[in-house]
């Protein structure tokens, strides 16, 4: 589906029986085969175009984010636009270095050769973006895919309609349209898109849909990165200042109205800590959003009716310590803290993805760690304590995509850290150089001199006993493998 059709509403009807994406896929493949996207100069031009888009259309993007999620300019800037700009700048600055062949150390017998790993584009990349950070989670992968020399089809989420429109109608004007296209549609169209062969797919979304993407990729043996989610536990030790913890916890929980894959999902703490944490959280929330959060310009809204209804149901789990108000008309849910929550309740069974924070009590650190390890590996894990040993224990005895000690997902702002999940929370990673590496084929190259054949004699049959002895000796020296 070319960008020309983007003016239709998201989910433009495909003509019966025809494949709306066939021409685009073919066109982009031809472009890739022509070698157009490979030279550094081309990649730089594209990245500069993307940079200009972010600068010139900043306001347009902010408006789209307001439309989609009622995201405040502050949040739009620091969690979407600035991070994208940063990635563009980083790629522009480092592209030459990233593109260089990586030399490999050689062993005794191949010391005379040149051995290196060459990074090459895969070809045609598909990036499927979600609705919660619709700019960041489509454009940051895009930076990596372009930097690595690929052609890209971007499939933004149809749920964040405002952003989808900007990406479909405006972004292509800044990029080379023979190597970049936006595909539109809902689940049905995405299925159709996935019937085509891609050379790499990066998907951000739920584990449920992740499985579907993975199955589709398997049909074509397409390598993938899946950025999924889960319930991100947050352990709060007794040894800490509850107000500081509450500030940090609340900020990361209610940012983007809780619709963040790495947000702290639930808290594990002792009953005593809970007593102190609840009022501290209330204090923080009032400071952040005022007495009437519904009127705070700093609190966003739920993305859609469907999610609003889902979250509304969760409000009846456990007991509302404070918050709990909602307004269906404006898709508003108040920053809420739940207590007395049972493990079997719905709020503890699915990723919350909203401004609701359940507190669960545990009797000890061990019990908390057991609780965490009984469940699927989360995308993020947090531990708060003045005692660094406690933090390190949680880190060492659990597994998760990422880990934050005494703070929330601040690590997301560092492109020097790889971002990705493990187990059901995902596979593969990106950000910064990791994006470039993810979207590249790492090709092992060995250049052997054509002379010096005498040295090779030893490896050819027939193997006399003398040759065998000599060969064994030569090969058993340090780090030798097959002759």
């Amino acid at each position, binding site marked *: 589906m070319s960008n020309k059709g983007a003016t239709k509403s998201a989910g433009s009807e495909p003509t019966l029986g025809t494949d709306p994406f066939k021409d685009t896929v073919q066109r982009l493949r031809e472009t890739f085969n022509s070698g157009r996207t*490979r030279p550094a100069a081309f990649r730089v031009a594209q990245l500069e175009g993307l940079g200009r888009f972010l600068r010139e259309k900043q306001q347009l993007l902010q408006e789209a984010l307001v439309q989609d999620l009622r995201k405040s*300019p502050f949040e739009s*800037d*620091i969690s979407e636009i*600035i991070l994208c700009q940063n990635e563009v700048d980083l790629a522009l600055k480092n592209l030459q270095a990233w593109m260089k062949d990586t030399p*490999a150390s050689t*062993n005794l017998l*191949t010391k005379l050769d040149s*051995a290196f790993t060459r990074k090459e584009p895969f*070809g045609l990349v598909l990036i499927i973006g979600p609705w919660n950070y619709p700019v960041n989670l489509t454009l940051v992968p895009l930076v990596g895919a372009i930097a690595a020399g690929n052609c890209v089809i971007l499939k933004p989420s149809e749920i964040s309609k405002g952003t989808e429109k900007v990406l479909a109608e405006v972004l292509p004007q800044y990029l080379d349209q023979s190597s970049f296209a936006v595909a539109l549609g809902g689940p049905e169209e995405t299925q159709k898109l996935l019937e085509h062969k891609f050379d790499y797919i990066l998907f951000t979304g739920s*584990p449920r849909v992740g499985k579907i993407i*993975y*199955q589709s*990729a*398997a049909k074509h*043996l397409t390598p993938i990165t*899946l950025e999924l989610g889960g319930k991100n536990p947050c352990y709060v030790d007794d040894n800490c200042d509850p107000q500081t913890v509450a500030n940090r916890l609340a900020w990361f929980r209610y940012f983007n109205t809780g619709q963040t894959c790495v947000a702290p999902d639930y808290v594990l703490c002792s009953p005593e800590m809970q007593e102190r944490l609840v009022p501290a959280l209330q204090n923080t929330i009032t400071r*952040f959003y*005022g007495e009437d959060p519904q009127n705070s310009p*700093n609190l966003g809204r739920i993305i859609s009716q469907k999610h609003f209804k889902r979250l509304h149901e969760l409000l009846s789990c456990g007991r509302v310590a404070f918050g709990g108000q909602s307004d269906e008309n404006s898709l508003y849910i108040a920053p809420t803290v739940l207590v007395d929550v049972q493990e079997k309740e719905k709020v503890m069974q699915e990723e919350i993805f909203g401004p609701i924070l359940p507190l669960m009590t545990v009797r000890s650190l061990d019990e908390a760690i057991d609780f965490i390890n009984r469940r699927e590996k989360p995308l993020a894990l947090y531990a*708060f304590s003045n005692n*660094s040993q406690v*933090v390190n224990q949680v*880190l060492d005895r659990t*597994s*998760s*995509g*990422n*880990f*934050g000690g*005494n*703070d929330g997902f*601040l690590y997301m702002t*560092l*492109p*020097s*850290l*790889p971002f990705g999940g493990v187990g059901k929370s995902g*596979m593969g990673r990106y950000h910064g150089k990791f994006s470039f590496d993810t979207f590249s084929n*790492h*090709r*092992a*190259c*060995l*250049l*052997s001199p054509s002379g010096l*054949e005498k040295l*090779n004699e030893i*490896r*050819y*049959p*027939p*193997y006399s006993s003398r040759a*065998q002895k000599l060969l*064994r000796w030569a*090969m058993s020296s340090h*780090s030798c*493998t*097959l*002759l």
Partner: protein
Amino acid sequence: MEREVQRVRQAFRSGRSRPLQFRLRQLAALRRMVEEHEKDLLVAIGADLCKSEFNVYSQEVITILGEIDFMLANLPEWITPKPAKRSLLTMLDEVCVQPEPLGVILIIGAWNYPFVLAMQPLVGAIAAGNAAVIKPSELSENTAKILAKLLPQYLDQDLYAVINGGAEETTELLKHRFDHILYTGNAAVGKIVMAAAAKHLTPVTLELGGKSPCYVDKDCDLDVVCRRITWGKLMNCGQTCIAPDYILCEASLQNQIMQKIKETVKEFYGENIKESPDYERIINLRHFKRIQSLIEGQKIAFGGETDEATRYIAPTILTDVDPKSKVMQEEIFGPILPIVPVKNADEAISFINEREKPLALYIFSHNNKLIKRMIDETSSGGVTVNDVIMHFTLNALPFGGVGSSGMGAYHGKYSFDTFSHHRSCLLKSLKREGANKLRYPPNSQSKVKLAKFLLLKQFNKGKLGLLLLTFLCAVAAVFFKVGYH
């Protein structure tokens, strides 16, 4: 089978496989196993492929010993958390990437190098602190049996299990949940493995295959070229995933190449190839018949003899091969070497690019410009120029495919990385909460500018960053004190 897989999982949960010392001990034990039972291994593996003991040693055993030694030497360094660059905002925090084991690794081996292709992944899995289930190929029966017998004698019996069986057992095994699957084999089964993995969201490394092209330029020393090609092609009777599958060259070179290969074969294996202890056999009757059918109707320049009773197929060269013929449609995996004439290097490049991306690409040439162009304009898992096979032997190079020749890579540190999860960590202290006021609502536009500055500048030189941070903190403290009151 359910019980065995559960037992392995429980063993992993105990945490035993994680400490460095444990991993080193297991690897050392594995090394002892190979040393102490060298003879038994050579005999077993040799029996599966009618391979001389020396060839088993030089092709399989030595590789594993080298890999284990490499791990033992480097593991202590690899498992340490690696610091990452910080921004001004995170200057005082501990920022690093920590490698952790994934859990239970499933290794599905292949029959052509039955020892290496089960053991090399296992070495990596152990090094990364995982438990493992190994499913050797049932076609290389003797190796499968001896692995099932020996591994439990040397390794922790609950953490590492060998499960033997055929397609049925493998299908059953794939229904279970693993934390990573490394499969070596063909693309058709690769898709099945990937589809099974998808159900559990299990990441996979697929070492598949394809037709690895071998381009021979004019003006080469054909003596040397042909010896190297013959060596690589006929190793293991052509049953090597990175064997040069077919040759591309200008028509005028065909005869010379054919002649020199013929001479080399004689040199390597003598007049009566069947009698040579260094020449292997085809693994089974099915593959024998398959390879036999590839020769049918072809112009045999040399070779072509077969003997079903011993599954012997002579080194065979086909010339003027039609790209549409059967022998050019599937990975040969046998001692048949088609030569496909092309007009020039350009045509060779187009020919290669019209087909699936191969596991290996070989280029023989003196012309550096041509070599560069050929590498630049094609894609493959690996490349060796002016030789064959060798890029496999360097564990400093990743070994893996691309497109239908596979995904992911391993060997050496790449194994360690493949079987680890690299967990990003940011550790702060609960102090200096004042600095956080910058990010808390209610927000303002001026905050954004400051935030941008603090977030974006990355620092290598810690001292400079710290100095700047201290200065800014002082400024910020004053600013916010004033602003808040």
